[in-house]
């Protein structure tokens, strides 16, 4: 078991008090490809951001890799995100002033465990796996949407995280690119034994994953 939540509850206070998550609890195993589905407003993205440790305004327990991180301060959570969690967003969100290679390298340079040369080598390796080695030195903004999303995945992978989280990772892609991204994620889960947790409203994408958790009005269905 790599991630576990117990009795997560969260309120939105604006404009009125509203219980957006109610008693959420489940476990995720190592190497599992999990998708969160539900109608918009069901709280699936809200839950993902809690799992990601970026949102700390909730009650309940969040255990990542055997560590209860619920009460941690922002600095410790940042360190956990840096080392153990990779992110892929719907709108690829690369740093546009940097090249693709630099974008991939940044989380590893932040972690600071390897020398710059080693980080660069690893980043090139990740880009090669995703078929982007010839784009490495281009500015991130010059790539197509599908390519940018693959750079974002390479960036999420650079520190070999235990968990890769995605908020609609294929939401902005055509079917061909969606298939490519899906295949990459599945391979990461099944071959590399990295855990994938992705929010999606693409039913085919969800069906093809190992397990799907459906949310309705802030509860597990």
């Amino acid at each position: 078991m790599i991630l576990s939540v117990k009795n997560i509850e969260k309120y939105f206070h604006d404009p009125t008090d509203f219980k957006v998550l109610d008693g959420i609890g489940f476990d995720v195993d190592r190497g599992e490809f999990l998708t969160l589905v539900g109608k918009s407003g069901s709280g699936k993205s809200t839950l993902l951001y809690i799992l990601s440790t970026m949102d700390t305004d909730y009650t309940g327990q969040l255990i990542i890799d055997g560590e209860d991180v619920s009460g941690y301060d922002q600095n410790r959570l940042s360190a956990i995100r840096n080392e153990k969690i990779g992110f892929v967003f719907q709108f690829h969100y690369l740093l546009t002033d940097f090249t693709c290679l630099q974008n991939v390298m940044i989380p590893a340079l932040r972690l600071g465990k390897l020398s710059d040369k080693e980080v660069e080598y690893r980043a090139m390796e990740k880009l090669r796996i995703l078929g982007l080695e010839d784009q490495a030195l281009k500015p991130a903004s010059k790539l197509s949407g599908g390519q940018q999303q693959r750079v974002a995945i390479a960036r999420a992978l650079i520190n070999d995280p235990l968990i890769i989280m995605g908020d609609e990772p294929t939401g902005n892609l055509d079917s061909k690119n969606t298939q490519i991204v899906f295949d990459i994620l599945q391979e990461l889960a099944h071959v590399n034994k990295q855990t994938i947790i992705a929010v999606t409203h693409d039913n085919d994408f969800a069906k093809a994953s190992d397990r799907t958790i459906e949310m309705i009005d802030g509860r597990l269905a």
Partner: protein
Amino acid sequence: MKINRHIATTYFVASKKMTTVAIVGVLLGMSIFMFMNSMAEGFDRTSSESFFKSTPHIRVYKDDVLSVPLSDEGTTLIVNPKVVPSKNTIENPMDWVKLIRKQPDVEVVFPQVSCPVFYNNGKSQIIGTTIGFDPVEADKMFKISSFTVQGRLSSLTTHQDGIVIGSGIAEKMNIRTGDKINITSSKGVNLTLTVVGIFKTNNSKEDKTKSYVNLVTGQQFLKENNVYVTDINVNVKNPEQAPQIAAELTTLTGYKAEDWKAANEAYMAASRMRKIVITFISFTLLIVSSFGIYNILNMTVSQKINDIAILKAMGFNGGDVVRIFVYQAMTIGAIGVALGVVFALILVQALQHVYIGGDIGYFPIRFEPWVFFRGVWLGLFITFLAGYIPAKKAAKVDPVSIFRK
């Protein structure tokens, strides 16, 4: 961490135009700040330098005393306050001189007399003042030799009937060293003296009225004996401490000891005013120039709000974000300050060669290491603040709210 610096540098390079404008802002603010403060220092130094050519740090003299009403146990009988007629001499001056000389921090002490005189020039007379003192000691205090243009002050020691006159007097009377000059004092004493030196200060009024003689000659002008002394001049090690030492001397001797600051209240007030104005203007410039940095950083933070959210998602913490933006601000600041120093040096150099004329001569400015040192630190500090405020704002960015938009 190196990666923070790397990101900061990338942002710095990416916004070249804005960065350049901010750098130029700091450059101008810094250089004018340092330049104006150097100028203030220069003014202060030259004016106090020229000041101490005729004024001692402390002057000990006998102050006038008002008569006390004649009274009988509370009933005032006669009220007619007026200055008690008495000689304004210091009693036993040489004993006091010896005693004052023993005080710590005191450097030069000598007695002097001053006497209003007329320099007789045929039928016309020039009104002025002559000062009688020991030329060796006086030279130590006023550095008279440094502005003596003809003859020597030290010749007074060998010529009892010698006199050193101002260049203005010499010009009007067409006198050179070696010539005789006839002088009548306010007490009606008429003496003919030999001119042994001519001085030229940068104060034309002094040059036209003042002369120096031996103490004995001065006493003769006043029709007094050789223990008659009107002032004891005292120089201390640090002129800034003169007021405290003057107070000590007053209690020690019982005579009035007046420091140069108290004696020249008007000059001191003007100097304080000048300082306040210059400080105010230069600080304003410095602050205005830091707004450039504040602006560009605020703009960068707003533009890069997505980047900040991503960096935070990838594990950069608030401190990292602050460092990225403060580093960017400090880079702009450091370049601006460095160029500002160079520019200020050029300004100082250029102005040093501008001839103002009159009492001032060349523009009284020079490289003031302390002013530059202070300017550099102040510039960097203000830069830091101008960068820190937007950086703190950036650190508070909540990534979730950005991603969910």
